């Protein structure tokens, strides 16, 4: 294994593109799809209606856990207007996002595992008929005992387990790793503290309901979908439909919001493709809002236990972190999620010895998966509050204590993660000064809280093991026009604009001059899609390489003609180059460096670069009612380089919004085996009136490997918000709410306990006893930061 040679550093860039002479990078230009979006012209998947389209509805399980005894579709088939009805036996092949958990079927015919599990699908001439036909399908069930909590899943199942693989009882996955020796260190520590926390599950709630349209023409399936990852949908379709990849084309339609919720391949995508193949007609399925709650793949509920040893002055000496994740009924990204609940603690704080034990269980709920921050907001919440409490124990200012433990740039963590650029200090200073945090006065009912975070700029390893690039870009220039091709999917974060900006910068154009073809498996080269904040970094680097090659061709042709590149127009340059070289096409690709540590499970956590954030929340809290009003949020984010500051601010503000929603009101709750409130009225997403002012600071650390130094902005800034809210609440009322969301009733209860002289907190009382397997001991990396796995 070797480190990939770094792309040139800022200072090493050729010519005027070095230094700060950037023309379009760094400017607050409108996004390239802005006009389409403000005029209603952008075509989202549900806006597509090819001629003769059939409408599909899906029959779903009304039971959280049951065996299917029989399915009778005959009455449904007789309804006029019904063209096709399918069940699980039509789509028996299992799929799933991770190769190790291929446990889903597009339609279940043996067993259902949550209310909403798909059983049968109908294609009809309109939606009403399709729905009526679903109603007419008779299913006989043998109802099984549902498993609805982590504790229940750890126990012996009454009937049978939910999935037939995994650990004991309903355990899906265990992780147990130790880097260095923690126990001895705890013994020697000046102070050791233990805490238990719970982070409730919540969901993405994209405004756009998932939708997919498929056609089948000349033996070839074409699918338009609101997906974040055309490539993974492509793979799943090929597997389940048993078609070669080249007979399937997946196109990402304009995208109405993902946040991680459209990163798995979904049943409805496979179903419409199958129905199109059977009927020869276009078939469309748009999920209802209720079905979107069942599609889920949202934030895992996580129970956490953490023990930390510190010196008298607050230096962390060792940490032991345990997590238990409520995974819902299927694997989804769960194995990765489990690792993520333990991976990034070390990326913000220097932890010399670290032990992590994680466990994911199956329950009879819609599957959990990746939501903004994938598996890391929960431990971030726990870790930040835990350190806050340690600071209180020691009588040290919490900001100061955290600061003493900040990781340093260009180091390697005890679990082998490579940290390069790191703007933690700068971010902290920005929010401290702007919020006047240090000058705040103690005042009952008013509080301020501080927290930090870090996140990946793209996962260092792909979902399925391979040595190929993670992103590829091709550029074509002819007769003065430029087109860039890339499989990346713009889900609203602005990845198309980033690609156009990078190509424009290199070629001396404006982003609006660059035509883009993206997210189409037929016409664009691979990109692994919009998850793990990878697109700017990876597709950006691929675009940079392709554009620099193109620029080199243009420069060479212009100079051969006796001119300087700077003196001719782009059109002139392109004509000279096309005449000289023929077809002008260049390509670039990006493969992340192989920097994972030498142990099993090291694939989750490494990233070519980490973003950093710091946040201060100011709130008022009423002791009598427990009601909280957030007055203002200050947030500083180390994005490496803001390729477009408007997009970065938008990502940061949106992250703060979602973080506040999670902190204060959002909750994927269940009652009697059912989702308690699968509606936008009862699932509380903050309105205009619930959102405070946000002051955003962009910190640029110019990452050595990011395109122009860029890292990520879409996920990291969500993470510090929930713990900062809780720290502020403690500042205001003197109680700890160790459980997300912080609802007024929990605040009132904590205050009541405080009054009675009990511990002034609300939260889980204990962490269950979990039969973790023996811990795998991993030698920490040598202190020399340049050392790699290979050199050990």
């Amino acid at each position, binding site marked *: 294994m070797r480190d990939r040679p770094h792309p040139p550093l800022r200072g090493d860039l050729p010519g005027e593109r070095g230094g700060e002479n950037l023309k379009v990078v760094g400017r607050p230009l409108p996004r390239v799809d802005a006009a389409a979006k403000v005029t209603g012209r952008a075509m989202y998947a549900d806006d597509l209606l090819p001629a003769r389209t059939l409408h599909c509805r899906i029959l*779903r399980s009304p039971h959280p856990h049951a065996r299917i005894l029989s399915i009778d579709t005959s009455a449904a088939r007789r309804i006029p207007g019904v063209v096709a009805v399918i069940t699980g036996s039509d789509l028996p092949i299992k799929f799933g996002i991770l190769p190790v958990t291929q446990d889903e079927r597009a339609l279940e015919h043996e067993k259902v595992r949550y209310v909403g599990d798909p059983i049968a699908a109908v294609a009809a001439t309109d939606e009403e008929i399709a729905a009526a036909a679903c109603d007419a399908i008779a299913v006989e069930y043998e109802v099984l005992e549902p498993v609805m909590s982590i504790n229940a899943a750890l126990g012996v199942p009454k009937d049978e387990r939910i999935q037939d693989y995994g650990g004991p009882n309903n355990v899906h996955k265990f992780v147990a790793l130790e880097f260095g020796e923690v126990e001895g260190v705890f013994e020697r520590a000046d102070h050791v503290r233990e805490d238990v926390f719970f982070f409730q599950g919540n969901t993405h709630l994209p405004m756009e309901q998932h939708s997919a349209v498929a056609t089948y023409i000349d033996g070839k399936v074409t699918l338009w979908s609101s997906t974040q990852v055309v490539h993974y949908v492509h793979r799943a379709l090929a597997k389940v439909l048993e078609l070669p990849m080249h007979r399937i084309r997946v196109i990402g339609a304009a995208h109405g919001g993902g946040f991680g919720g459209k990163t798995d391949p979904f049943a409805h995508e496979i179903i419409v493709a199958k129905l199109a193949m059977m009927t020869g007609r276009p078939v469309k399925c748009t999920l209802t809002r209720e079905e979107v709650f069942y599609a889920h793949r949202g934030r895992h509920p996580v129970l956490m236990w953490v023990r930390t040893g510190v010196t008298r002055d607050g230096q962390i000496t060792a940490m032991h972190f345990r997590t238990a994740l409520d995974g819902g009924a299927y694997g989804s990204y769960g194995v990765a999620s489990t690792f993520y609940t333990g991976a990034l603690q070390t990326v913000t704080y220097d932890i010399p010895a670290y032990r992590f034990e994680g466990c994911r269980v199956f329950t009879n709920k819609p599957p959990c998966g990746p939501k903004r921050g994938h598996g890391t907001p929960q431990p971030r919440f726990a870790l930040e509050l835990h350190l806050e409490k340690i600071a209180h124990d020691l009588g040290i200012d919490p900001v100061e204590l955290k600061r003493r433990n900040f990781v340093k740039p260009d180091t390697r963590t005890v679990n082998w993660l490579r940290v390069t650029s790191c703007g933690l200090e700068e971010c902290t200073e920005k929010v401290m000064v702007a919020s006047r945090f240090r000058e705040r006065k103690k005042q009952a009912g008013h509080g301020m809280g501080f927290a930090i975070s870090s996140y990946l700029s793209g996962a260092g390893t792909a979902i399925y093991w391979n040595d190929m690039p993670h992103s590829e870009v091709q550029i074509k220039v002819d007769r003065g026009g430029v087109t860039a091709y890339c499989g990346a999917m713009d889900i609203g974060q602005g990845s198309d604009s980033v690609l156009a900006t990078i190509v424009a910068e290199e070629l001396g154009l404006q982003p609006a001059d660059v035509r883009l073809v993206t997210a189409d498996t037929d016409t664009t080269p691979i990109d692994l899609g919009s998850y793990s904040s990878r697109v700017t970094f990876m597709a950006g680097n691929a675009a940079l390489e392709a554009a620099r090659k193109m620029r080199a061709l243009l420069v060479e042709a212009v100079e051969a003609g006796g001119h300087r590149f700077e003196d001719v127009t782009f059109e002139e340059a392109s004509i000279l180059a096309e005449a000289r070289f023929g077809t002008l096409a260049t390509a670039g690709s990006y493969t992340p460096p192989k920097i994972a540590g030498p142990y099993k499970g090291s694939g989750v956590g490494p990233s070519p670069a980490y973003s950093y954030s710091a946040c201060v929340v100011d709130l008022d809290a009423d002791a009598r009612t427990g009601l909280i009003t957030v007055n203002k949020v200050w947030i500083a984010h180390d994005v490496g380089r803001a390729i477009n500051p408007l997009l970065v601010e938008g990502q940061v503000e949106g992250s703060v919004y979602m973080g506040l929603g999670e902190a204060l009101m959002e909750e994927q709750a269940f009652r009697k085996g059912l989702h308690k*409130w699968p509606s936008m*009225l*009862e699932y*509380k997403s903050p*309105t*205009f*009136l619930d959102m405070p002012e946000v002051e955003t600071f962009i910190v640029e650390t110019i990452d050595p490997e990011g395109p122009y130094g860029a890292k990520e902005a879409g996920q990291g800034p969500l993470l510090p918000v929930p713990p900062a809210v809780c720290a502020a609440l403690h500042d205001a009322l003197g109680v700890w709410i160790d459980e997300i969301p912080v609802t007024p009733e929990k605040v009132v209860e904590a205050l009541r306990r405080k009054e009675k002289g009990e511990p002034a907190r609300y939260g889980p009382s204990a962490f269950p006893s979990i039969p973790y397997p023996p811990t795998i001991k991993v030698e920490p990396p040598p202190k020399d930061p340049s050392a790699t796995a290979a050199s050990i």
Partner: protein
Amino acid sequence: MAAELGSRAMFVAGGTDLFPKLKRRQFEIDTVIGLDFLPREIHNGSNECTVDAGVTLADASRDAHVNARFKGYADAAGLVSSPPLRNAGTIGGNLCVDTRCNYYDMTYEWRKAAGFCMKKDGDICLVAPSSPRCWAVSSSDTAPMAIALDVMSLRLRATPEMRSAYVKLRRRGSIDFPIAGAAVAAQLDGDIVTSCRIVLSAVASYPLQATAAEAFLKGKRLDGEAIDQAAELAARPAKPLDNADLTHFWRKRMVRVVVEQALHRISDQGAGFDG
């Protein structure tokens, strides 16, 4: 016409309550009879005011006269749902809005999965399984205020001493139905309460009148202490159940707070006619 069609027909005004319920199959009917032909005006007299049932909540909440004399009513109308819903929703519809329950205001598929309850298609109550009756919550914002104002067919009458206030509790600043609310209308002579009505929203199946608190306040000076005690009395009969947002324990506790806030508003307010 409605009589002819019987239970298979329903009136619709703004449709903002009825249509979502039809989509969720909480009612199954063949015909809706539009009430667009009904008058929709606010008639302002010198000390009374008639609001036609067809007036939208937005118009009622913004009307200068209604605001000046029936502050509580204007506020209640302005706190219903969200701006676009208030542009369509009417005050007539708001008075008749169906009772709510989060076992019931769900899609057909969800209700089927949960097991139908007696309010529609079933025979038990899922909130209180041993109960012979339905506990769905009266969730109109303006109905309690109308009762507090002693309104007959939306004829709002004000005397010079008339004051009114409505306080609504909900999770978000908009969209959400009340999870507790207090409508108060009172006449004061100086700071002595001469008459008073306190009606609670979202704590029972109907707007709940707090008669003990009303009787207590009559003849009292409306000061902090009286407000405290009245609020305590008003909250006592409120029995929220676990079928709306947040826990019923907390909601019960909040009834006192909203009543207190509404009474404070009354005490801070000038009389109805100085607006």
